[in-house]
């Protein structure tokens, strides 16, 4: 099947049942997308499918045939990356790719989100280091 990731076309050969996260990491070597819980709870695997944040660890890769997938690698020039660095919005960093993907989706639809909007939109990205206040700050100040 054909997979469109970050504007590039890839041929994917995984068996049916392979998740999008597994295909990205193992077939395409796009290892920025992390797998933590592997069952749709924690948000570490968040990617955009047709601009909406979804959980790639419970998305079958064969179900996104024909869709546009954006991973953290496709957002390397987005100002949100700098905002996370500026605000020191991470400790271990494992959840950070998923956090940034969700944050980008939020500010692309709502460039100046309120605290309530940030908390609502980011609720599906868990950070076990507890960097939430800094993550919130990064999103509040992303435009510099």
């Amino acid at each position, binding site marked *: 099947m054909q997979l469109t990731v970050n504007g590039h076309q890839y041929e994917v050969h995984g*068996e*049916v*049942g392979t*998740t999008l996260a597994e295909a990205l990491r193992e077939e395409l070597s796009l290892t920025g997308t992390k797998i933590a819980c*592997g*069952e*749709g*709870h924690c*948000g570490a695997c*968040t990617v955009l499918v047709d601009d*909406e*944040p*979804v*959980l790639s660890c*419970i*998305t*079958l890769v*064969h*179900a996104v045939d024909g869709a546009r997938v954006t991973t953290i690698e496709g957002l390397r020039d987005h100002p949100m990356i700098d905002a996370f660095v500026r605000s020191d919005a991470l400790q271990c960093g494992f959840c950070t790719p998923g956090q940034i993907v*969700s944050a980008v989706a939020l500010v692309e639809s709502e460039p100046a989100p309120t605290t309530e909007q940030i*908390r*609502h*939109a*980011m*609720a*599906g990205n868990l950070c076990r280091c507890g960097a939430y206040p800094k993550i919130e700050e990064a999103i509040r100040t992303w435009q510099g």
Partner: protein
Amino acid sequence: MELRRASSTTFDGLPVHGGTEVVPLLRAGLLRTDTLVDIRGVVPRDIAPGRIGAGATLAQLECDPGIPEVLREACRLAASPQLRNMGSLAGNLLQSTRCWYWRLGWPCRLHRVANGYGDECFARDGEHREHAIFANDYCASAHPSDVAAALLALDARLRTTARELPVAELYRLPTEADRRTTTLEPGEVILEVTFDECDQSVYLKAMERKRWAFPLVGVAAARRGAKTRVALAGVAPVPWLLSGELDSATPLPRNAYKVDVARALVKRARATIGA
């Protein structure tokens, strides 16, 4: 396993829409199939007053001003943003219990074992702080759908590929003779949800965190004139229409707190909508 795209609502195989329930259950080995059928192309997802395509996502519903407050709020408070982007209305109604014994594959009364079904509810004598306080003598699982409680309060109706039915009739309590928790037949697909307008409605939810948690108790209430329907999530193996007050609850030793929570939320919900 193969994945087919459904070209009509008649097909052989296990239907999958958003996949937020089916995919984890397949990966956990709790569901098995040779053929998955992607039904996204054949289930309507449009939203009109009093009428919602069963394939609409929870994310679509939570921000549509035409949706009654009780349903919008139930969607807003359900799951996480990513899951609401993926999961469909009908898929939410058909989700399996979050009972940890069931999810971990313990051979309980809802699980098939070598010679039939399990013959024990492990939660009744085990850990059950998140379990049912009504109708819990055979299976103590708690139905986790906020959306189902909202639709039950709205007295919504479902149209499937085979029939029309009130949402209450989608669910059944498991019994020794029949362990199913829904009345949906194999191959039957929910296509549409309809409901009449209501004057006022509300959804209140007690959960472990303020976001992204299943309901310990969810209270949905909808008022039309002098008539109010109150339905609860997280308190029985099926979405629970409240008749009378909470006194008929039969809590287990470690979940009696749910009765107090439910009583308070029901009172607050009634006050909010002028019931």
